[in-house]
């Protein structure tokens, strides 16, 4: 069982469209959507939910007005400015419990919060494990860890070859949680100065956690000079550029029809995505 995670640094480079195509191309796999606060993969895989689980995580302080003497100690110690006028703002509260521990009246309790849900679904391409973090919630990293853990169990139970994860944008908590312990990271970038800047940072994160990397350039013909620069940068870093996917409206058309692009159209985009998957599976077999 090998685990590959698709990242980009910058959002909107085409991760999810490419991953949905991997779902159609790869045999013997479970799909995971690790972008838990803007989960979109389900729109292309059209899952039928089989299991729905609550995700309880973190705590929020609650002040009992009857016991509270308004001494103000809780407000003084809170470093997240979450208590004002002896009321807790649950959005700002980081659940540290400092106020609960110091309140001389025992007027503060810490209550578990329901931060979201995660799902195991069946699609025509196999299982999909996905989640929905409640808006404004914290702990996206823990929810990512929960969906990855479930995917591993499914892969073990069914003897599957691959876990294929759609990662979140950025480089912070949910990205690190998506990446830790994976066998390979695929970076989908685009030939824009922002795309390149952000790719650079996410490659550094992969290096930091010693995860091998390959790159696919999406919308490669948008700026040929920048595409060449990405190739020479990757060459210097010893990173394979496994695909150069041209810009084409068929990707959006496929999305509107709810289909992976490799099943929608066989033009210039699809052969490159197939090539990318071949490189990934080749690397995973040998890793």
């Amino acid at each position, binding site marked *: 069982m090998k685990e590959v995670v698709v990242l980009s*640094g*910058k*959002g*909107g*480079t085409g991760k*999810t469209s490419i991953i949905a195509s991997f779902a159609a191309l790869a045999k013997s796999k479970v799909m995971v959507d690790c972008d*838990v*606060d*803007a989960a*979109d993969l389900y*729109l292309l895989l059209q899952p039928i939910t089989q299991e729905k689980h609550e995700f309880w995580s973190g*705590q929020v302080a609650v002040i009992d007005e009857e016991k509270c003497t308004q001494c103000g100690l809780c407000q003084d*110690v809170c*470093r*997240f400015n979450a208590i004002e006028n002896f009321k807790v703002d649950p*959005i700002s509260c*980081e*659940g*540290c*419990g*400092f106020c609960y*521990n*110091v309140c001389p009246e025992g007027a503060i309790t810490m209550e578990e919060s329901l931060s979201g849900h995660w799902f195991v679904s069946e699609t025509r391409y196999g299982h999909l494990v996905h989640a929905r*973090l409640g*808006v*404004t*919630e*914290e702990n*996206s*990293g823990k929810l990512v860890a929960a969906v990855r853990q479930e995917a591993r169990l499914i892969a073990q139970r069914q003897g599957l070859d691959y876990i294929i994860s759609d990662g*979140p*944008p*950025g*480089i*912070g*908590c*949910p*990205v*690190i949680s998506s990446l830790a312990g994976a066998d390979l990271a695929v970076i989908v970038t*685009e*030939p*824009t*100065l*922002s*795309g390149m*800047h952000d790719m650079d*940072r996410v490659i550094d*994160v992969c290096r*930091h*956690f010693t995860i091998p990397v390959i790159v696919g350039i999406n*919308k490669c013909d*948008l*700026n040929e000079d*920048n595409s060449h620069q990405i190739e020479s940068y990757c060459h210097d870093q010893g990173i394979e550029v496994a695909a150069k996917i041209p*810009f084409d*409206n068929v990707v*959006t*058309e496929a*999305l*509107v029809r709810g289909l992976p692009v490799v099943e929608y159209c066989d033009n210039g985009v699809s052969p490159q995505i197939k090539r990318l998957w071949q490189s990934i599976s080749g690397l995973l077999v040998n890793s």
Partner: protein
Amino acid sequence: MIVSIASGKGGTGKTLVATSLALSLPNKRPVQFLDCDVEEPDAHIFLKPLLTHKQAVSIPIPHIDEKKCTYCGKCAEVCAYNAIAVIKEKVLIFPELCHGCGACSYLCPEGAISEVGREIGVVEVGQSKEIEFIHGKLAIGEMMAPPIIREVKKHINQERLVIIDVSPGTSCPVVEAVKDSDFCLLVTEPTPFGLNDLVLAIEMLHRLAIPCGVVINRGGVGDSNVEEYCHKEGIPILLRIPLDIEIAKLYSRGITLVEGLPQWRETFLRLYNDIELNKK
């Protein structure tokens, strides 16, 4: 006035809109630009500020004085993040789990815990023509963006129009960046992904009681569901930018829309006036 530019989905054109809005206004009113996408800050690529100050952002983590410590375990007991473990006569600290709340040092009965700063990123301040520019950068391998966003926002100067470029998503870094805004522009694209994430972003703003309007970028491909949704929910669509390969090429070279195609300046001025009309 504080205007934040958010999206839900990544790559819809937040930075494109934020930078062009900022560049259209200085003749009308002075602007301060905060890039609060501290995981992947990109606005500097377009605004090319001269950065003059750099300040490290640290969070306070516990440091144990082994001479005073009696290994009672109180610190580990109060830590909500499992960042401290006491095993026999040894205190283990896991710095990357620590949120810097300070409970352990305050509650240690022996006064054995002091706090030391652990650097997790930087804030840089500069100037791009008339625009005051501030951005934050999370260090590689670090998890927590919100403390850096808080540091960036400490620079807010309300005498100027404050424009905040936000990261994608709807969870804690986004909330930290948009809260206290007078208005939030949500940039989306007319696709099922754009709509799905727009609905989540609107739910977030309702919860924070921040008024919002929508920018539809890359119009012309995709479908009409975003338009219909906004119409049904009574959310104003304040700007439509068509899918235009010329705009995408300018963007790829780090050139803002209003500098590459100056005829857009008028449109962004109108956008600003519409924001004034719809703000809190």
